[in-house]
């Protein structure tokens, strides 16, 4: 009897595991399985739930789950979650979006796994793994063609033409194009650093000279974000540098031995050795930001979304008498703004969603690209919408946020926008390799030429 009982239990274990493996849900979460069951292919049989949700016109609620990393502690959650609530309220009884929190590091993997089963969520973020999106998702027809929506949406006038062109592949609009560009620049603590003129009007040498002994918050860990933004500026200030940055975003490059990059790396080495904050080697982004917000350094390079860290309600992140009110923003030396307008928009839609879900997705895209929502977004996370005539209310509120007003004022007709150098590196090189090599550049183990040679070799290996 005991043997029989044990056997039954063992068999139950095996079959339960087999059943789990047989379920097409990668995350195993109840929410995702619900979403996935709803996102069955239109060509396949619809699920029971989808069948009962006969679209907005019939008065039935269409409900989807939206896996997103803009939740929880993610900096994007502050604006995004209330935005979803606003959408749900606006379409109460018709459409409903439920948030499913996914860690940012796992988001791309989750979407890839769901894509293998053709059970992606209805709405997905772009920009997480551009290479996969370009090489797998688009050729395999995973992205719903948004051309009809684009031609009929009242928000069409806001979209950036570069993004529309970039998002159009083989005549299909595979992502909702970007309407807002968020040029990255630098933030400085005016309590400790008082430049004689605007930073964007300075050359790199003038900027470094103006710093004196003051430090810049750099980092080497992960993708060495802050350091790479500065390197991008240095490259952009070299002859032919902007062209290198602009022309290699699509296919990436394995040639970092070009004089513009070698010269820029030579300058970066000196700056890292003389003007980097004490914790730069080994620092991740959080360490660099913490260093800046504890007055260990006077300058940090980042995008306008960092403005939230300088608002009074983020004062728990400040120390050593740091006051967010003293922070000003500017574009980078040489009047450079780091922004890639030739890129995807933020959202793409699953080609396997049902008609009702597609209607919901279109309503969402109309909603997030409406003037009110775009203005709210820019007030929260910065950026500019080149094709929009801003409301007076927006302009007044933008002026209240010092750093956003600074960035907006810094942009002029001579400003040059360019992608970051991370945009032209293969994924693994940008995400890990460059960060691994920076400590050796700083301690002099690698010369700038060797650094560029090794970077080229790593990139060639990644692209092979």
């Amino acid at each position, binding site marked *: 009897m005991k043997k029989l009982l044990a056997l039954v239990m063992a*068999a139950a274990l*095996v079959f339960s595991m087999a059943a789990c*493996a047989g379920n097409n849900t990668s995350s195993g979460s109840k929410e995702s399985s619900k979403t996935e069951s709803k996102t069955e292919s239109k060509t396949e049989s619809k699920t029971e739930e989808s069948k009962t949700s006969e679209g907005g016109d019939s008065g039935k609620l269409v409900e989807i789950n939206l896996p997103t990393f803009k939740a929880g502690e993610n900096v994007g959650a502050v604006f995004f979650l209330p935005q979803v609530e606003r959408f749900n309220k606006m379409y109460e009884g018709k459409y409903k979006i439920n948030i499913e929190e996914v860690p940012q590091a796992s988001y791309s993997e989750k979407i890839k796994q769901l*894509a293998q089963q053709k059970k992606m969520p209805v709405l997905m973020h772009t920009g997480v793994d551009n290479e*996969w999106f370009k*090489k797998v998702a688009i050729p395999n027809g995973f992205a719903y063609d948004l051309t009809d929506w684009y031609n009929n949406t009242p928000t069409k006038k806001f979209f950036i033409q570069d993004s529309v062109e970039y998002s159009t592949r083989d005549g299909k609009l595979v992502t909702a194009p970007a309407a807002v560009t968020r040029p990255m620049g630098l933030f400085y603590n005016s309590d400790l650093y008082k430049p004689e003129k605007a930073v964007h009007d300075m050359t790199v040498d003038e900027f470094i000279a103006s710093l004196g002994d003051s430090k810049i918050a750099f980092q080497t860990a992960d993708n060495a974000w802050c350091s790479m933004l500065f390197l991008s500026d240095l490259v952009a200030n070299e002859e032919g540098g902007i062209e290198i940055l602009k022309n290699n975003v699509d296919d990436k490059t394995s040639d970092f031995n070009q004089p513009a990059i070698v010269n820029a790396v030579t300058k970066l080495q000196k700056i890292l050795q003389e003007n980097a904050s004490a914790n730069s080697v080994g620092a991740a982004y959080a360490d660099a930001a913490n260093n800046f917000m504890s007055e260990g350094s006077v300058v940090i390079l980042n995008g306008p979304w960092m403005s939230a860290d300088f608002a009074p309600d983020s004062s728990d992140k400040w120390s050593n008498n740091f006051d967010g009110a003293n922070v000003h923003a500017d574009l980078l030396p040489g009047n450079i703004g780091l922004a890639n307008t030739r890129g995807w928009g933020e959202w793409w839609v699953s080609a396997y969603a049902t008609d009702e879900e597609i209607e919901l997705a279109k309503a969402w895209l109309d909603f997030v690209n409406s003037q009110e929502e775009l203005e709210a977004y820019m007030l929260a996370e910065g950026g500019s919408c080149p094709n929009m005539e801003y409301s007076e209310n927006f302009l007044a509120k933008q002026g209240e946020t010092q750093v956003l007003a600074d960035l907006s004022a810094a942009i002029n007709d001579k400003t040059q926008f360019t992608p970051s150098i991370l945009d032209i590196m293969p*994924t*693994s090189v940008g995400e890990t390799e460059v*960060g691994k090599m920076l*400590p050796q550049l700083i301690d002099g183990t690698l010369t700038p030429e060797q650094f560029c040679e090794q970077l080229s070799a790593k990139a060639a290996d990644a692209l092979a």
Partner: protein
Amino acid sequence: MSKIKMPDKGKRVRASKLERRDYKWIYLFLLPSVVMFLMFYFVPILTMFFTSFTKWDGFNAPVFNGLDNYTRLFSNPAFVISVRNLIAWSLIGIFLHVGFGVLVALILYHKPRGWKFTRAVFMIPNVISAAAWALIYKFIFNNEMGVLNNLIRMISPDFNVQWFYTSPYAFWAITFTWLFYAVIVTLVVLGDLMAIPEELNEAARIDGANQWQITTRIHLPLCRNAIGTSIICTVTSRVAMYEAIQLTTAGGPGDDTMNTPLILVKAIMDMNNGYANAAGVVMFLIGVIIMVIINKVMKMNEPVY
């Protein structure tokens, strides 16, 4: 006392009816493990072997490219460094990590005062994940606020070393994240030590053996299988070591602390899944070869008593 009749060597012995009935149950109880092995290990391993000879992005159909992935892998300087690191870490693991674990087991075997408490404390690091340890060590070895450098600065105020980010210290900093956490070795060896019949110890003492001789001539040889098992565990852990490196140096500075799993993950990031699986096959083969060698050297298939 009746003699146990042993079967002639090479002669097949027919199982009795009772034994055959037991076999049925044995096979049935083995079934879950076999099914799970086939589902979760065997099929992925076969897939890994097959796709290692292809160019594959992980989604579209793989395209056969012969030995290209292996040629690339073996000519990759990072892989050469990975193999060198693996050999060094394996030797350190065998002699220092396992040696330390065995030493602690030998001490605990004599049940000194507080031995149970010591065993429990020694166990604590093992319940902390490798990822957490990596982060703890990142703080310990931090140049600015790390415990180690601050202690050294008490003697030498100008001391500055970025342990995880400078050659050749990074290799040793990584080594220290696992070197002394040898509780598994200790428990396995202690188990074997506890199983040694007390009569053997008494007989040795009667014959005039001192404690050193008892330890080296009786205890250690009788723990041969446990030590062999520990060595296999230690070395295969080094083959698969990922979190401790990724969360501290990510294989840097340069490629100083590279390991094959990092090459594998990096290849997946670049959607070179065929290449990643070639790295996986090499890891698999290294693991098998190590097991075979250690089995032979430690004579693990031969009876100890």
